[in-house]
């Protein structure tokens, strides 16, 4: 496992993230235009969804898909409860802040997922193509779970009907599922047509995208530090390092339980371990505007994302290999 970790730390992907982080912490004016970053994330979602669909078209579909989605949805509903309880114990966060953070950790980070795919491929594994559907299915339930936690703690309010539609149809879910279905329909032949676009340059785009993630995470950390660092206590930071291991462990168990391949188990672990930093923050701004965005964004993007990218991914791969006896 240490070899894996070392190789991962020295991959262009992780180094690019590190460069972004460093540049931001040094207050360099290096920035990637918002439109370009959004363009790259659209590219990555489209490519990964499409390739997942093609894999399903090639290998056919089995009960595994339904089981995996079911397990994923359960995880997404359940993890926030664990996260919330943990936060209540080890951090001084308010109920609202703790619930908002919990929503992030039940949901998933698609970039972490993309990076994990890249790691599985480097390890010669071929995860189930439908894992992208599982990823999409896990985005939203955690939000409902967190709102329920808030309500149960006496601070609930009616959920705006429109919000649910917004969450379920948010851009990244629609693009992921849509390109998955397109890949499924067009199959390997469709892939041949566009693979020079979605396969060959994929890793390079991911590197530049992670450079931007590093910049954004670094700026967030700096802003947090400037704010006196009081926003986050040690308990909360410990949470952001422990929770991915819990989520990753449960994800791996769930994946192995529903009979996924080693690559699939690794991806399931990653989904459990990763924390949203786009869809859930947006939903929280609408549903729980009083929760402090610095808290959940710093934890999710500033602590857990780098942790997963550097240490988590090799650990989940190792876990998957161990569980599946590979």
């Amino acid at each position, binding site marked *: 496992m240490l070899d894996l970790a070392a190789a991962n730390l020295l991959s262009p992907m992780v180094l690019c993230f590190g460069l972004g982080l460093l540049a*931001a912490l040094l207050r360099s004016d290096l*920035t*990637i*235009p*918002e439109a370009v970053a959004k363009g790259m994330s659209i590219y990555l979602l489209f490519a990964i969804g499409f390739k997942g669909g093609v894999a399903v078209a090639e290998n056919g579909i089995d009960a595994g898909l339904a089981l995996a989605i079911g397990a994923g949805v359960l995880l997404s509903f359940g993890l926030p409860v664990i996260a919330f309880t943990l936060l209540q114990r080890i951090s001084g966060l308010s109920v609202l802040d703790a619930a908002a953070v919990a929503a992030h950790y039940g949901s998933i980070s698609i970039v972490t997922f993309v990076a994990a795919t890249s790691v599985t491929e480097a390890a010669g594994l071929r995860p189930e193509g439908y894992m992208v559907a599982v990823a999409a299915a896990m985005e939203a339930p955690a939000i409902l779970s967190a709102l329920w936690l808030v309500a149960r703690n006496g601070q609930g309010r009616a959920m705006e009907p*429109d919000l649910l539609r917004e969450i379920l149809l948010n851009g990244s879910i629609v693009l992921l599922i849509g390109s998955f279905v397109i890949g499924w329909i067009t199959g390997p032949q469709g892939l041949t047509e566009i693979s020079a676009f979605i396969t060959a340059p994929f890793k390079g785009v991911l590197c530049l995208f992670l450079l931007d993630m590093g*910049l*954004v*995470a670094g*700026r*967030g950390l700096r*802003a947090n530090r*400037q*704010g006196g660092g009081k926003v986050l206590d040690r308990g909360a930071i410990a949470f952001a390092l422990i929770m991915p291991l819990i989520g990753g462990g449960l994800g791996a168990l769930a994946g192995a339980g529903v009979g996924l391949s080693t690559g699939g188990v690794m991806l399931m672990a990653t989904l459990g371990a990763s924390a949203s930093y*786009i869809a859930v*923050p*947006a939903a*929280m*701004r*609408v549903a729980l*505007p*009083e929760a*402090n*965005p*610095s808290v959940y*964004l*710093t934890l999710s*993007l*500033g602590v857990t994302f780098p942790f997963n990218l550097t240490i988590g991914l090799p650990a989940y791969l190792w876990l998957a290999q161990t569980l599946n006896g590979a």
Partner: protein
Amino acid sequence: MQMHPAKRVEITIEAVMERRLTEALAGAGVTGWTVLPVMGGSGRSGVWSREGQVGRAGGMVQVVCLIRPDRLDGLLDAAFAVVERHIGVVCITDCAVLRAERF
């Protein structure tokens, strides 16, 4: 040139709330507004910038409404109901407009 007194209301609000705000405005009978992009800012909730998009999911926007003075209260009530729990600011200025039939 003939000018007509009006009010200019400038609402700076999170981008995720834009649709909700404009729907509330439309609900209150306000049909004219212009949305400007915002690059960054600072307020009680700290400093943010569009490129370091941490702290404001998707950033903020500025919604500018020109309106006949007698319709100001309706607009503010509608806007306030949306803005109330959210961060952001509302600024009202006296102004004059050409082509009053448009407001």
